[in-house]
């Protein structure tokens, strides 16, 4: 039986009732579900072991920062892949930047180890229970999390490349330096 977005959602409702907070289908047709961060390790483990869902492979996980979304500024997006039925999906969690704690996935997939270290390094997302949560690509004594949106790429004196000059409103919380 092939999976489809509807089947996956139905299975979610059956196996994890009330867990899905929001759903969304990307332009690429991949289903994304939003769940609570407390449940993420449990739900992903069950998704891996479930006989229908069989999401056996964690393709990637990455952090997100939306400074304008109060109370849910930071997020993590997990890309899962079912190799048996060749089906991909995303799981998303969002949480406040003041309390950036997320359960680790290292107990589910060892590959989450460096992926989570990378997101800790760049976004300051703290993965609780991670065996070795250190910076990985940046220098150890860096005291900021550089992928957060408040860190600009260029010096603040540049006034060109402003979206308003090009008939755009610009994007909330985001100017081009």
């Amino acid at each position: 039986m092939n999976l489809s977005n509807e089947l996956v959602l139905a299975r979610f409702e059956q196996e994890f009732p009330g867990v899905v907070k929001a759903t969304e289908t990307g332009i690429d047709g991949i289903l994304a579900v939003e769940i609570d961060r407390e449940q993420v390790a449990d739900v992903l483990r069950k998704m891996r072991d479930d006989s229908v869902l069989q999401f056996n492979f964690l393709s990637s996980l990455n952090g997100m920062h939306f400074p304008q979304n109060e109370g849910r500024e930071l997020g993590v997006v997990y890309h899962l892949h079912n190799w048996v039925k060749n089906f991909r999906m995303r799981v998303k969690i969002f949480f406040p930047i003041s309390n950036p704690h997320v359960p680790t996935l290292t107990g589910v997939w060892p590959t989450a180890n460096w992926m989570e270290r990378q997101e800790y390094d760049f976004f300051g997302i703290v993965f609780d229970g991670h065996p070795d949560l250190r910076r990985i690509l940046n220098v150890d004594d860096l005291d900021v999390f550089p992928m957060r949106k408040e860190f600009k790429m260029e010096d603040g004196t540049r006034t060109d490349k402003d979206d308003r000059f090009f008939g755009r409103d610009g994007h909330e919380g985001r100017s081009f330096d």
Partner: protein
Amino acid sequence: MSQVQSYFSQLDSIDGELATLNLGPTHPATHGIFQNVLKMDGEKIVSAEPTIGYIHRAFEKLAERRPFNQITPITDRLNYCSSPINNMGWHMTVEKLAGIEVPKRAQYMRIIVMELARIADHLVCNAVIGVDTGALTGFTYMFQERERIYDMFEEVCGARLTTNIGRIGGMERDFTPGFHAKLKDFLKTFPPRFEEFGRMLERNRIFMDRVINAGPISAEMAMNYGFTGPNLRAAGVDYDVRVMTPYSSYDDFDFIIPVGQNGDTYDRFMVRQEEIRQSLKIINDAYANLPEGAYHADVPDYYLPAKDEVYTKMEALIYHFKVVMGEVPIPKGEVYHAVEGGNGELGYYLVSDGGRTPYRLHFRRPCFIYYQAYPEMIKGAMLSDAILTMSSMNVIAGELDA
């Protein structure tokens, strides 16, 4: 375990003391900037602690500041042994987001270029495995062949290593007569030379004794560690993005996914050898059936107009300005697109808020993901096996550190 390894595993250290050995960051045997702090018991590795990030260049941050067509040169520098695959992966990601349909001819041209890049990538890896086992000869001959592939890239895009090849919407120009001549020559003369290289190593008893059981990994562990590409297939899992989620008309072609059994250095070497042959087959098929037609989609919003038109036509000038300044309509939304890179699933997760640059761009870099299994794979092995394991995993510093 090979006989030598089992002999060493019987030996206990004389006084229970471990030596700490700092391998890298700049070490002639590691082919890149990798540091490993090894705990050694005699010549046996007890544990390894890798440090990465020596050439980190903040690509994900840089990408948030660049218009879409200016991100292609960044992707060159991920796995710089097969830049065209990275470039094409990025183009296809944007095309997926913007809903651009690329003409068949451009898709086939891309396949030819991507498979050439895969051959170059695998050639480097396998030739270097030879070097690390003490066979320098094959390396020199295979690097000559790689040079010829780079000559072909030069014909297509003008650059050799960091190619910036192709454009969003297709290819930047049709194949030149020089490319046709070089490709035909390559397809004729490369296979026998490559088979000669294969004959030198594939069934060579000395080589086999050296690499069989060096740095093995089981299929289950490889999957749990997020392995993809040749390293996973060497462990016996036939996962290939080109077949699982075909892109750029890969489903038109008939080719075999080679798999190994033990996931050791020998299997990784052999899988890459066979993949080179399969890539050649794909190139032959694609080149023989190269469709007529346009080499790029008619999408002036994204595709840079030809330079001579920019200088002479108003409309082309306007579009040139818009593309270069990043003033092109881009839908809001998110896409994930994966291509089969030289080392495995190279994924692009692109989140767009409709602005001129990505809101967030995440590279799923296969090297970064599988290199974390390295300490596990070399535990209990000897130092020289650790070197072999690293080169046969084809860890590329650019892709590792992004």
